[in-house]
């Protein structure tokens, strides 16, 4: 097995990328509606914010991973990419929850 070559396609990641794509269109529509016209309780907005945060982080970072892996970075490069993006995702999730905190605790 050579160190370089096309990355193996993970069917689950491919499928989740499609599912999150469709959900993001719906949730982003709600997000824009709520930002402009919406009257919603803090808990509903917190819930929508958390869902949007999770969907967008997965879809965005998995998309970045796909783009990077298209550059033939090798087995080590693929592992490093995945680990770095997972760390970035975890940190961003915490930061996003931090930003949503006033809504979550019902401000």
């Amino acid at each position: 097995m050579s160190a370089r070559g096309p990355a193996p396609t993970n069917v689950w990641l491919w499928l989740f990328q499609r599912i999150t794509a469709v959900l993001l269109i719906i949730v982003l529509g709600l997000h824009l509606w709520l930002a402009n016209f919406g009257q919603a309780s803090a808990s509903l907005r917190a819930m929508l914010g958390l869902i949007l945060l999770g969907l967008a982080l997965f879809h965005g970072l998995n998309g970045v991973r796909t783009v990077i892996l298209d550059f033939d970075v090798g087995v080590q490069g693929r592992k490093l990419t995945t680990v770095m993006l997972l760390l970035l995702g975890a940190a961003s999730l915490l930061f996003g929850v931090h930003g949503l905190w006033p809504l979550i605790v019902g401000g």
Partner: protein
Amino acid sequence: MTRRIARLFGRGGDLNPKNMRLGVWAWLIQRISGLVLVLFMIAHVIAISQANLALTGPLFTMFNGLRNPFWAVDRTVLAIDILMLGIIAFHGVNGIRIVMFDVGIGVGLRSHKIVFWSLVAVAIVASALVIFYGLPLLGGT
């Protein structure tokens, strides 16, 4: 690396604009817009969370700019927001196109062009609706 770039963009290369057809443009723009949107999302979350938590500091002026009508303040922020809206709309409809092709809808020499331009029209209409109905309301709150 240099050789690979030369092969991609040189004569006969896949990413030489002369050889790029509609589907390759769509593929390329989808990737670039995706990367731009990740950066935008980070900036968006930072701006909003700063405004939520601190309500002071330099980022609050950015949030203030977002909540005022564009004829009054910070046109740059608004221009970026409108640009992002367009990018999101394109990335979204082109994503729908990708899912459609995965399922096998609209794949064909003629129909894929019709699908593409119809969805671009949908993206333009959706963006226009948000701009004309959404933006004026931001100033009122």
